[in-house]
């Protein structure tokens, strides 16, 4: 199944976008609806970024839905990044209620923590010992 399937009936299915900045950090932006069917794709993208020791910011702001399997991938990514000393941060800025609610109810907003501004998240990972800028 292709990871990006666009939109139908007003429903945005899950999309992932990867940006890299000059400081060698990656921002993985999650938009639309993400669940069990898109979790493997997110896991692969995170795996390859962590394998190349790239500090990662996951931006959930454009996501309209995430389930526990997505939270599981994010938690697993955070654990692996911490073990390897690679920067890892999550941001959710003015995003969907559905995502807010899941982060709140699971306590992950405080646990991860989830930043409310992308700059804060980038600043958190910039202090990590990830891949030096080229």
């Amino acid at each position, binding site marked *: 199944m292709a990871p990006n399937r666009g939109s139908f009936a007003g429903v945005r299915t899950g999309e992932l976008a990867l940006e890299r900045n000059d400081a060698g950090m990656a921002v993985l932006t999650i938009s639309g609806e993400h669940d069990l069917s898109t979790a493997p794709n997110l896991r692969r993208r995170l795996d390859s970024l962590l394998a190349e020791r790239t500090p990662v910011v996951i931006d959930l702001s454009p996501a309209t839905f995430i*389930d526990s399997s997505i939270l*599981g991938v994010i938690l697993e990514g955070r654990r692996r990044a911490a073990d390897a000393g690679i920067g890892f941060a999550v941001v959710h800025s003015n995003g969907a209620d559905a995502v807010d609610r899941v982060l709140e109810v699971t306590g992950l907003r405080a646990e991860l923590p989830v930043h409310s501004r992308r700059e804060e998240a980038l600043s958190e990972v910039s202090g990590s010992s990830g891949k030096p800028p080229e």
Partner: protein
Amino acid sequence: MTDGGFELTLPATAENVMVVRQAVAGLGEALSLSGSRIADLKTVVTEACNNVVLHAYDDEPGPLQVTAVPGDEQLEIHVADEGHGFRPRAKDGDASLGLGLPLIAALSDSFEISGGARQGSRTTIRFGYAPPDFSNNGTHTQAPKELAMAIPPGVMVRPVLARVMGALAARAEFSVDRLADTMLLGDAVSSSGEGDFSDGRVGISITDGDGALGVRVGPLVTGAGERLMAEMDVPGAGSLRSLASSMEIAKGETPQGEAAEFLVFEVER
């Protein structure tokens, strides 16, 4: 708001969970639920379906059945499969059962999972149209300050009560002798009959104090407390009453507000 609802049967695949999610979102809109409540509904149903997709069929094809029945106050949702129940299976990176069930629990009014090995599983979710109240920070009931038991009269009373009192006495570091005394008193209380108790159930509450157990038996019908105390007298050998540091009949009320009496005693370490 009692019409409508749907039944949906489709292959239990990860890609199909989104289909179910959209169906319940549409139903939520038709029921005029708020946006945040529709989001909750999508989460709850998604997590229940995830459990079927991940755990019901061991990668074999099988059906995912979802029924939504709107009632006056809440939506009842059944998510069922014909698999072998929720087998514990470690899947790489799968945290669904770790967070999924707590999410269902937090966002619904109640839920239950039934079924077992080789008979499929069924998750029933009762989802209130109004959001659950998080204002008390998730603590829905006060922790009881004492242990309260209600046991139907009969053969169960003696073994259950003796073991509970023994466990509490042991935890309070009673000596072996005092432990035996406590269990003897428990036995004496167990001898009370169905007719002694106002509501036909043997009611006992035990307060675990500092080196002492406070026991309150009742609500009893009038006169039953005196009778219980009298039965503790052993002709020619004193009374079991002396094993307690205090024992009295106290006046009180049943939960329904009717006058009743209680046998109250304390056992010290």
